[in-house]
């Protein structure tokens, strides 16, 4: 099955206003015998920033990694329920995980550039998908680095090893690497937790710019960050989705007592 074809088709038939990039229904997940997610139901909007907050161990990272099926890197993982990406069931055996991840990119907690040159880091994604022409790659590299607001800092040293960059630059490089294959969704797993405040600010500004073109789902342990960058916020606790609403509503007027306890700092 070809995901691009399906999306193409789905998009035509759907009214634009209520577009959801992910429709999660009755999702349960186990690591071996331990259940980590309980009956999650959630519609994630397109071209907006959705933040996922909650105390550590609440399942927010697990949930994020389920969306591009990275969670299956742990061999004992079992899931039940349904996740639709633009109408297509991501667990459909006919759909390859590689195909899904081409459309749903990911940025990780710790900056993880490859021990290669800056250029090769960005070109990695296009290359594995068969784009080999130097001209195309040059264009992609520049566009991606510009898109991640790091072009000016690195344009003169594209051949240098990415490990020479600072932590904040490395993380923006990783975002650029993710942009290179132009996914529709970018999953971000606590992308600023290893960064200093200034680098954090830069990444947050970047997230604001990127939502023009991308649907962004960001897991964060930092409630202020969620409030600053996101349009909608989901609060997870003990593997359950407690509350999911517009960010300003969730932070100013939470429906659930547990959400209120958390955002007012009573636990976590």
């Amino acid at each position, binding site marked *: 099955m070809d995901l691009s074809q399906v999306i193409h088709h789905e998009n035509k038939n759907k009214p634009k206003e209520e577009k959801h990039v992910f429709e999660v229904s009755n999702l349960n997940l186990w690591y071996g015998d331990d259940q980590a997610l309980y009956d999650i139901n959630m519609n994630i909007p397109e071209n907006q920033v959705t933040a996922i907050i909650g105390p550590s161990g609440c399942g927010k990272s697990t949930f994020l990694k389920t969306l591009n099926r*990275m969670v299956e890197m742990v061999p004992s993982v079992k899931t039940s329920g349904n996740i639709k990406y633009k109408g297509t069931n991501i667990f459909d055996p006919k759909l390859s995980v590689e195909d899904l*991840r081409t459309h749903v990119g990911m940025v990780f907690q710790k900056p*993880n550039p*490859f021990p290669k040159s800056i250029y090769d880091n960005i070109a990695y994604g296009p290359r*594995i998908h068969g784009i080999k022409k130097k001209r195309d790659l040059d264009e992609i590299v520049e566009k991606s680095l510009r898109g991640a607001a790091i072009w000016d800092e690195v344009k003169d040293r594209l051949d240098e090893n990415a490990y020479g960059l600072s932590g904040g630059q490395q993380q923006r490089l990783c975002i650029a690497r*993710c942009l290179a*294959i132009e996914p529709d969704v970018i999953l971000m797993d606590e992308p600023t937790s290893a960064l200093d405040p200034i680098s954090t600010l830069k990444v947050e500004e970047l997230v604001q710019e990127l939502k023009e073109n991308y649907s962004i789902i960001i897991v964060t342990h930092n409630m202020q960050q969620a409030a600053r960058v996101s349009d909608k916020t989901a609060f997870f606790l003990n593997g359950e989705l407690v509350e999911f609403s517009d960010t300003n509503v969730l932070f100013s007027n939470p429906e659930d007592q547990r959400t209120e306890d958390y955002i007012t700092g009573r636990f976590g």
Partner: protein
Amino acid sequence: MNGFLSKEEWKKRLNRRLFINRIFYILFFAATTIGLIFLAMLLYRVLTQGIGYLSWDFIKGFPAPYPEEAGIFAGMIGSVYLIAIVAPVSLVLGVSTAIYLEEYAPKNRISRFIQGNIQNLAGVPSIVFGLLGLTFFVYIMDFGYSLLAGGLTMSLLVLPIIVVAAQEAIRSVPNELKEASYGMGATKWQTILRVVLPASIPGILTGSILALSRAIGETAPLLIVGAAAAIYSLPDSLLGPYTAMPIQIYSWVSRPGEEWPLVAAAGIIVLLIVLLLMNAVAVFIRNKFQKRY
């Protein structure tokens, strides 16, 4: 201070304990240096005995019935040819095995069996590999006492060492790098080929060079699979007769007379220089590509 001992008694005991401590410190240190002294003596003896016979003629010469005319050229070239067989065979098999065990193998009994098997194979005496080679390569496959039989026997001998070294190198590649690759829709093999292997190649190379230097110095299995002690030409084909440096040295050591041990020592100097160079390359690679993640 102590209800059972007088103060003087206690002090005496303490002094004795400290004295014992001192003595054993010296003993332990001395024991540690004995190995090193032995090594120094060995090198000194070999150098002083062999240096007189070490000449350009010795390096360029073939075996001869007279000590003054003997040379190690055939042995050196034979060793190079052997490595030319051992390196590709054992690297392909060893690295593939390591990739399989680290990246693909399901955590089940078969994988554990293969892993345990490699561990045990590493402990099998080298001469037993010689017997395997003799029956299997020399007789059953009918390669005879040939370069090919010797090379394949040696390949199997170093295989477990290379597997273990490659496994360690592959295991040390951080998971985050693999995740980054998978996250962009790379397949498993793409990830291995483009991320895991490039990151682990310095480690694999270092371990492999050390394993190959072991093959260079190994004598017993080659004796069994029929490396020739006296040969006056270079091997002309895979199925031709051959010799190797340690075989030459062994043949000189076991000859009677005052002079032959000196020839053997000269051969040992050449062998040790080759090993030293290989180890230097391994150390260089390790330092140059020291893990940066």
